[in-house]
């Protein structure tokens, strides 16, 4: 009941005209970002953060806009999957399997409409799940002490690669690099660490610059190398002829997909890609011979879309309640929270209740906006898809420059961003994931603070780190997160790889 009251207050925040306007803008930009290959959700949100700052938006408005971008990007990923057989982002790759065949049969607009409805249902279920689960989890998290938090952060890193991750050791290396960068600057005892006397480094490395450099600039370099921008033949979009029966047919599928996706999103180490994979596979199993999966079955479009949108809302649960994101894009949203001076974690639900519930309400409203945007206006997005990347990526890079420059008006930051871009390119070449680097940058200060608190409490006894049952549990799960990929990973990867076209997108969901 209490939750309902908060939610009503949240609607009060989200329905204010200017917040609604920014939610609409975010939903539009997000769909666009998701639709354009080579501009993933994490990348897109990262580029927009500096702009949200320089606009001087209020915290809740900035957060509402970027959450809408996040939700929109998940909707948008399917457009290029269906029309071009190229997933706009990684979780959308399962949508290619039946979406592209449907388009080839001349049913592109039905596929787009069905996937929009499925996305809507998946998101809606997961947002309701979020509303029910988040306050419970936040309450539970209030019992965490510093030792538990330290272990929780380790768990976050250990599961970040996901159980389908290739080489968990590379995740560890990446996390170390990120945490090391986070130690640069003056620490809270006043000691200068790794600043080399450079004035710009005294306050540490601004993670927004690092994120934009690592994602946006390295993407440009990767694109130049691959030259995938020759332009694919475009699919013609027919006139929509969808009956209620078509929608009714996909409803059960969408419900199952949404629930599964939500669970996959909440659990550490799963994420949206796995969410859409599981929903698709399960649906194929459930329907058995009644379906014609792989040849353009509408349910094969609905299942993965409901799954990946469910997972993306589910992924907000650990981010909002524990301050521990489980994916690249939620990590970028966390960066936004931290730079807005909001301490993420369970206390946010009491201290910044208006912001949290405003965002959750905005997520609900955003879903309706997205459904409206995505059915009648899908033509606009299809047109924009035909902008060749060779024009698009330089402009995106320029916007990244403008955004970073507008934060502090210094050229040093721009050089820094380019350096991070080159570094990101090298790491990606070595298959070192970038998301743990960013998470390390974000969580580093909190992690060290909790370690210090724990040690202060125990008077320097390291045993405190695994003194409580909860802490031990977290350590065990963290260990499993690193070991399981070696055992289960190859099997799952084979399953996913056997069926999907290779994904061009480097970042995970």
């Amino acid at each position, binding site marked *: 009941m209490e939750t309902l009251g908060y939610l009503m207050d949240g609607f009060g925040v989200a329905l204010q005209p200017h917040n609604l306007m920014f939610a609409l803008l975010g939903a539009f930009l997000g769909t666009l970002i998701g639709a354009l290959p080579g501009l993933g959700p994490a990348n897109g949100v990262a580029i927009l953060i500096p702009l949200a700052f*320089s*606009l001087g938006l209020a915290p809740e408005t900035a957060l509402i806009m970027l959450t809408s971008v996040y939700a929109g990007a998940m909707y948008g990923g399917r457009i290029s999957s269906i029309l071009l057989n190229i997933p706009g982002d990684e979780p959308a790759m399962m949508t290619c399997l039946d979406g592209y065949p449907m388009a080839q049969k001349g049913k592109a607009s039905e596929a787009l409409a069905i996937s929009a409805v499925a996305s809507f249902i998946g998101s809606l279920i997961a947002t309701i799940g979020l509303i029910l689960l988040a306050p419970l989890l936040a309450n539970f998290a209030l019992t965490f002490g510093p030792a538990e938090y330290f272990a929780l952060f380790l768990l976050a890193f250990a599961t970040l690669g996901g159980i389908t991750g*290739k*080489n968990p*050791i*590379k995740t*560890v*290396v990446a996390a*170390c*690099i990120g*945490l*090391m960068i986070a*130690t640069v600057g003056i*620490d809270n*005892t*006043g*000691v200068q*660490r*790794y600043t080399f006397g450079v004035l710009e480094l005294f306050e540490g490395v601004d993670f927004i610059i690092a994120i934009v450099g690592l994602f946006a*600039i390295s993407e*440009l*370099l990767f*694109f*130049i*190398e691959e*030259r995938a*921008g020759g332009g694919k033949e475009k699919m013609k979009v027919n006139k929509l002829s969808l009956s209620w029966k078509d929608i009714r047919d996909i409803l059960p599928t969408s419900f199952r997909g949404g629930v599964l996706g939500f669970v996959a999103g909440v659990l550490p180490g799963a994420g949206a890609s796995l969410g859409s994979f599981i929903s698709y596979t399960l649906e194929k199993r459930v329907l058995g011979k009644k379906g014609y999966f792989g040849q353009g079955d509408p349910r094969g479009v609905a299942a993965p879309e409901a799954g990946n949108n469910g997972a993306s809302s589910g992924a907000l649960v650990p981010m909002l309640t524990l301050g521990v994101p489980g994916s690249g894009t939620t990590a970028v949203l966390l960066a936004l929270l931290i730079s807005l001076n909001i301490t993420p974690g369970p206390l946010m639900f009491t201290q910044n209740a208006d912001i949290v519930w405003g965002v959750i309400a905005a997520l609900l409203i955003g879903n309706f906006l997205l459904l409206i945007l995505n059915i009648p206006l899908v033509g606009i997005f299809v047109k924009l898809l035909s902008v*060749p*990347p*060779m*024009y698009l*990526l*330089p*402009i995106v*890079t*320029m*916007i990244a*420059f*403008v955004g970073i*420059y*507008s934060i502090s008006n210094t*050229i040093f930051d*721009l*050089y820094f961003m*380019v350096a991070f*871009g*080159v570094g990101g*390119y090298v790491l990606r*070449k*070595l*298959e*070192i994931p970038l998301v743990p680097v960013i998470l390390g940058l974000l969580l580093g200060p909190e*992690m*060290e603070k909790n*370690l*210090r608190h724990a*040690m*202060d409490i125990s*008077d*320097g006894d390291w045993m405190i780190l695994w003194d409580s049952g909860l802490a031990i549990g977290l350590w065990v799960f963290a260990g499993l997160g690193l070991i399981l990929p070696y055992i289960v990973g190859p099997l799952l990867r084979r399953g996913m790889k056997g069926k999907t076209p290779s994904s061009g997108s480097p970042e995970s969901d």
Partner: protein
Amino acid sequence: MTFNDRIFGVLMIVLAVAYGWAATQFPEPFGGAEAVGPDTFPKLLAVVLAISSLYLIVRPDPDNAWPWSRTGVELIIAVVVLIFYAMLLQPLGFIISTTLAVGTLCWRMGARPTNAYMTGAVSAVVVYFLFSFALDLALPLGLLSFLEMN
């Protein structure tokens, strides 16, 4: 070939040692030593990085090919363009430097030069006006500052 991971592993071990050694040189914080000082967390990180890098050296993944020859040159051109863009943003002003940077990038990525520089110019002017009038943010005008209206 498995050179990439091995070389990277060696570099990371060097980094871990240098980073860990630097941590031992930190001055003691004001108020005396504590259980966890400024050096504890970095030392921990150095150890973890060193161990995991050792694993990379022992069990490396197969290499991804590096782009040599033409593509490599294109990549270097792109990075140089970005550095010049940052360098010239203030002296030349936003509109001119953006036209040059975006134009050159589009051109090197395969667009025809006229189209490329037109794209650069149009996007520069649009973003400039969007920023100065709609969003009220000042971008440097540089050489074009004589156009400034008061």
